[in-house]
């Protein structure tokens, strides 16, 4: 993707570069002014997440946007947010999308000259700066927890943690409150109206602090909870020894009510814990979910499906 962008930047073009299903990058005079990807929350979601900015105002600004007076000017003019806030929001959203776009290998590309984003240019990025920042973010994720194994899996907080005291950032708190052992980091980001990268970083830091369940296949030395005085469970069976005896989920106040779960009928022998069928059911089924949803193609398919359904309503 980068080489295409560099070429477009050199030609100082204005328009939208569509990268397959991965997303779209908007350029203005050869500089990137907007980027979006279905893997990250939309800017509208970020703006209206905590109801401080009415969704109605954003929708109207979008519909009324013209080339002379793009939606961004309208929003600032109405006083729903300051110029600095709008700039920062665009900055967050573009870097967030760019991070996930830079990792994608889109085969089919299309460039629509003259196409503009409804917000209008609020912040200008040069292509080199964008890719440098994506690189820095990748390194930062790896420093936090050097494995991508949790990135696509449901976020499952431990019911009991091997520590007496925990310090959380406000975003980590939001993630834990919303985590229901079903939603992946990307879904949580959308639910919370926070950038997907920030949520991913929070999840990795939570994992590094030993507060999340990690898949048993990991088997890496760092996978066991750290910061504990007691010895870590045997590496072969961290899951069964750790999580199955502790009832999961009900005490975490998940924002939207979880769907009723079907009793588990097939396959997978459960390790230990037969007597606690009801209590363990959700944890156990959540534990086996990854085999179905961990695959990025599954996730992308679901995202596309959801987008299509949203477009219908």
């Amino acid at each position: 993707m980068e080489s295409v962008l560099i070429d477009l930047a050199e030609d100082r073009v204005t328009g939208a570069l569509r990268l397959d299903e991965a997303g779209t990058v908007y350029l203005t005079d050869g500089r990137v002014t907007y980027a979006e990807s279905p893997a990250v929350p939309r800017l509208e979601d970020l703006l209206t997440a905590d109801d401080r900015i009415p969704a109605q105002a954003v929708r109207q600004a979008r519909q009324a946007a013209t080339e002379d007076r793009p939606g961004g000017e309208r929003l600032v003019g109405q006083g729903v947010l300051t110029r600095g806030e709008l700039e920062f929001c665009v900055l967050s959203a573009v870097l967030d999308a760019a991070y996930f776009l830079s990792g994608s290998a889109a085969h089919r590309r299309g460039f629509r000259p003259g196409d503009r984003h409804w917000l209008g240019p609020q912040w200008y990025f040069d292509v080199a700066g964008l890719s440098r920042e994506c690189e820095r973010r990748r390194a930062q994720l790896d420093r936090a927890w050097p494995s991508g194994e949790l990135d696509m899996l449901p976020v499952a907080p431990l019911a009991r943690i091997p520590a007496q005291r925990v310090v959380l950032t406000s975003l980590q708190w939001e993630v834990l409150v919303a985590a229901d052992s079903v939603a992946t980091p990307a879904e949580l980001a959308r639910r919370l109206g926070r950038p997907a990268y920030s949520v991913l970083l929070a999840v990795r830091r939570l994992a590094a602090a030993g507060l999340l369940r990690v898949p048993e296949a990991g088997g890496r030395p760092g996978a066991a909870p750290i910061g504990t005085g007691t010895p870590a469970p045997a590496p072969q069976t961290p899951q069964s020894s750790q999580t199955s005896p502790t009832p999961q989920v009900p005490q975490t106040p998940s924002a939207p009510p979880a769907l009723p779960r079907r009793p588990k009928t097939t396959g997978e022998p459960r390790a230990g814990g037969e007597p606690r069928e009801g209590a363990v059911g959700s944890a156990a089924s959540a534990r086996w979910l990854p085999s179905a949803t961990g695959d990025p193609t599954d996730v992308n398919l679901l995202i596309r499906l959801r987008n299509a359904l949203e477009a219908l309503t």
Partner: protein
Amino acid sequence: MLGIEDCVTEAMAIPGALDALLIDQTSGMAVAVGGGRDEDVDESAAALSETLRAAMDGLALNSPGGTIRINDMIVTADNGHHLLRPMETVFDGPLVIYVRLDPERSNLALARHRLRSISGRLVTT
């Protein structure tokens, strides 16, 4: 009402200001830079957001409720006064404005007041 660049410009206009930075605390990224320096800005931004995070963690543990909300942080050092002010934003949290002041030419109380005024005009929360 300020834009991001104006915010750094105004921070540099504080008497005695040597450096100013606007930092995205979550990612540790330099959003805007004042004072004409451009090398190792990213490193500074990451280090400063770590500094603030460490202070928050330490003070949270030291507080009765275990939570902390820092309004601003002042560190006086050999190479000047370092002022950090986190600002809550609605989208991603917090944006931090940082300014380093010449100890000989600055007035800490004034600088702190100016920083508060800048942040009040940058964000509406």
